[in-house]
């Protein structure tokens, strides 16, 4: 702190000084772990380190990461959304059917899916913000209702012959530009926007304040209900987009298993990414990395020729390790503070 900005100067030249570092410890550790795994996989498997392997890996990461961005915001506010799988089913089936029936153009298909997701998110948000019932109970309930709606729209039929419109976000050649998969780029773009929003705008910071202490946030004049509503709506919107990715990654047909069990996969990615389930702390970058880690484990286990079911075991272990490390860090911080308090 040798060069303190003089109070008269309107703004310091370097932004780094006025904000905490943009990348937190947990994210660096995740980057390191993923890098290590990639190196090990590259050395032990024939083709992990090839475009043909990395590209699909990134594409497969995208939907979980995308839904995870919304879930991160929800968890930062101290909530949770276990209805993500149900939302995915509804968004995917509506979009797929519309694609088949009307041959929608890409932007329209995306818009439709996102709108449907936003609507479902709005239902969650209204019930949670105004019903004053814990989010987990509401979303357990809406999960079942969404599944019902999805199944009703499926009407016991697989949607066949989906046009290749959404292949723009698929695994194939249509899904890449210069070898870079569109789905992942769009996910990164949205993650960057979310990161920027959460870090640099008042509205974004208010999510953290609400998760830290909703009562104090209300006293500070923050529109707590509005923010909570926004968090669930945003989750719905992103789940809508993620559903398009899921359609693109599947085949030309869509069956009702779409979205099944995805809520836990999304929560796992968020938690591995370092977001605190107690609220008030978390980052979307961590979530994207968490999703990438989980997908790396799943693909890695397959490519190593290990029993594919073992990947879940590793996911479990990663959750314990990631959160355990966080707990230890927190404990160390408290101990340090106590020592500091004693010294003062």
């Amino acid at each position, binding site marked *: 702190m040798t060069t303190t900005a003089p109070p008269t100067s309107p703004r310091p030249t370097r932004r780094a000084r006025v904000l905490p570092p943009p990348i937190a410890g947990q994210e660096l550790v995740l980057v390191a772990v993923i890098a290590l795994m990639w190196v090990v996989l590259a050395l032990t498997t024939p083709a992990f380190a090839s475009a043909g392997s990395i590209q699909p890996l990134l594409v497969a990461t995208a939907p979980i990461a995308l839904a995870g961005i919304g879930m991160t915001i929800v968890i930062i506010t101290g909530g949770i959304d276990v209805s993500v799988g149900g939302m995915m089913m509804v968004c995917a089936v509506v979009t797929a059917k519309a694609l088949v029936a009307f041959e929608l153009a890409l932007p329209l298909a995306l818009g439709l899916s996102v709108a449907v997701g936003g609507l479902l998110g709005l239902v969650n948000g209204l019930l949670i913000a105004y*019903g004053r019932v*814990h989010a987990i*109970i509401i979303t357990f*309930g809406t999960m079942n209702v969404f599944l019902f709606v999805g*199944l009703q729209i499926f009407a016991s039929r697989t949607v066949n012959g989906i046009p290749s419109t959404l292949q723009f976000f698929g695994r194939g050649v249509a899904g890449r530009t210069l070898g870079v998969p569109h789905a992942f780029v769009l996910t990164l773009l949205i993650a960057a926007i979310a990161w920027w929003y959460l870090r640099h705008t008042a509205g974004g910071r208010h999510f953290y304040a609400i998760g830290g202490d909703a009562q104090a946030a209300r006293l500070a004049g923050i529109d707590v209900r509005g923010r909570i509503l926004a968090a669930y709506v945003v989750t719905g919107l992103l789940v809508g987009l993620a559903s398009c990715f899921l359609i693109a990654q599947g085949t030309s047909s869509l069956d009702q298993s779409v979205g099944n069990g995805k809520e836990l996969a999304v929560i796992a990615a968020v938690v591995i990414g370092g977001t605190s389930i*107690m609220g008030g702390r978390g980052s979307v970058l961590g979530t994207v990395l968490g999703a990438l880690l989980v997908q790396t484990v799943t693909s890695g286990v397959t490519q190593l020729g290990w029993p594919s079911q073992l*990947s879940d075991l590793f996911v479990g272990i990663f*959750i*314990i390790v990631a959160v355990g490390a966080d707990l230890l860090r927190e404990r160390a911080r408290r101990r340090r503070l106590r020592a500091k308090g004693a010294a003062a």
Partner: protein
Amino acid sequence: MSTSTQAPTPAGPDPAPRPAAAERGDSIGARALRAVLTQRITLLAVLIVVVVLSYVALDAGGYLTAPYDPDYLSASLINAVPLAMLALAELLVILSGRGGIDLSVGAIVALSGMVFGFMYGQWGWPLWLAVVATAGFGALCGALNGFLVAYIGFPALIATLATFYAFKSLAIVVNQQSPISTPPIQELYSLTRSVEIPVIGGQIPDVPLGIFTFLLPTVLIVWLLLARTTYGRRLYAVGTNDVASLWAGQPVRATRFGAYALAGLISGLVAVVTVAQFASARPDAGVSGNGMALPAITIAVLGGVAITGGIGRVAGVVLATLLIVWLNAGILLAFVGNEGSQYQLLALGVVLVAAALLNGFAGRRYGVAD
């Protein structure tokens, strides 16, 4: 200054809550309404009656594909056994407070089921020993959760999400994803068949044996544990206010740890029930489809267990199970084809959200916390 806004009222609202006054002064109708709105158990009881009567009326009107009669109600109780037992397991962990929840019960069922399959189906252990050992194994799995939550300080949702993945994976891998269905296992089905109750059995429907061999003992023991033992008292105390519990000299961590271990133990017993009910030890028993954990948590919450801990009763959980089981059984008769299973989802979701909202609303309206 001259216009003082309000004259000081001689007797302001008493801080002592209104309930006491309301209970005395109100008419029977108002009191009944109040009870239905604020007490989850009353609400559930009324709902069960409404549901059963509605189906019977539909049946009488010929809208059902088969009679909704006591025999059917009784036969459908077989579903209540694992559901209610796991909901009781969730009751214990949710009661313990600090966001207590157990997502791993289904995975424990799968893994202990395989262990039971090995012990009883392949190694030829005596039944009682295999059952005890399976329950013990389940308790061990639960103890891992309890250790992570109570002693290390993991949020329960995260610890049990992790063990859910781990146990699920191990259950599949442990026998190369094959179920175990040797003759001894197949014969276990007799444990869950319907039996005639002695003496009065001729007049009432046969009841699935699992009700007597597993569910009722578990209900009774959990009820006694919670309502009559020192452990139960400590669990409520810890769940209500763990700081006060510490100041009262109670072992907070051990109590919370115990809740998870017990939940694991019950899951181990459910594993035996499931193996018997399906006559095979399946590695995906508790995790296929939406798994067993989410319905169990849903039932517990519907039964009035407060997610914040310290509030919840065995009777509520049992009634919630009955409500859902009988509601679902009727839906299958009311909707033909695929619609039936789909409407079950809708019913579960709507009942859960409505009950939670109603209780929240009523709690504020009448100034009590349920």
